[in-house]
């Protein structure tokens, strides 16, 4: 295998102080369909998701945005999908990069590992879907 076997950009994170307003602006300005909104388990962060091709746009913001604050957003980070996260982590560590151990992701059955060096200032992670057995809850969306 050459490289880490990355298949595609899984998602790009747009961080803001009000994810719902930013997602609505992208819908209005660019015609992007917002497919799902949710609160992140644990933190309560408000998330909204859109998908273009095989890439998910994730709009992330605090649980309770200040409605009076000027809304500010920025491109924050990205996640690449890999077929074998253990092999990818081993390869990157072998080349001297600082990578966390794979851990369960929010997405059921997925493992995620964070790359903490060498990324050109980009918060960066790898994800492998169907890495651990899981039961899909009825109605769960990708």
């Amino acid at each position, binding site marked *: 295998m050459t*490289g880490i076997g990355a298949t*595609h950009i899984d998602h790009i994170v747009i961080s803001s102080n009000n994810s719902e307003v930013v997602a609505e602006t992208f819908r209005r300005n*660019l015609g992007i369909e917002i497919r799902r909104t949710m609160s992140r388990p644990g933190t309560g962060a408000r998330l909204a998701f859109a998908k273009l*091709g*095989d*890439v998910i746009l994730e709009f992330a913001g605090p649980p309770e945005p200040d409605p009076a604050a000027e809304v500010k*957003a*920025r491109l924050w980070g990205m996640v690449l999908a890999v077929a074998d996260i253990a092999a990818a982590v081993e390869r990157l560590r072998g080349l001297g990069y600082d990578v966390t151990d794979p851990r369960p992701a929010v997405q059921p059955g997925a493992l995620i590992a964070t790359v903490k060096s060498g990324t*050109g200032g*980009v918060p960066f992670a790898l994800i492998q879907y169907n890495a651990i057995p899981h039961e899909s809850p009825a109605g769960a969306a990708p």
Partner: protein
Amino acid sequence: MLTKIHHVGIVVHSADEALKFYRDALGLPVTADRVIEDQGVRGVLLQIGDSEIELLEPTRDDTGVARFLANRGEGMHHICFESDDVAKELEAAREKGIELIDQAPRLGLAGMIAFLHPRSNHGVLVEFATPIEGQHGH
């Protein structure tokens, strides 16, 4: 109509240094590597699935990319959506009252491109691109 994410742009101090990670470690193939003189940047595109990652290294100090690097450091700079007609996207944006950087499409590394002003999207710099047939595999 916007069909997919064409690329995400990442501003770096040194494209050669960033290539050690994105090309050599991740194994992403380089599809274009060019200095764009009038924009004062070296742009490197790497293929990942149906999208690309664009590394941007300023070659002069008087450009937007250089100012971004000086003010914010390395990191994600813009997101580019592919369209089959960048001129039509630009016109639609103008009709919606969206503030534009480019009043007309121009030639860029990704094909015919145009940028919206980040003020229009809460600070996120958005690019439209229509690839040119035969250009780096698109």
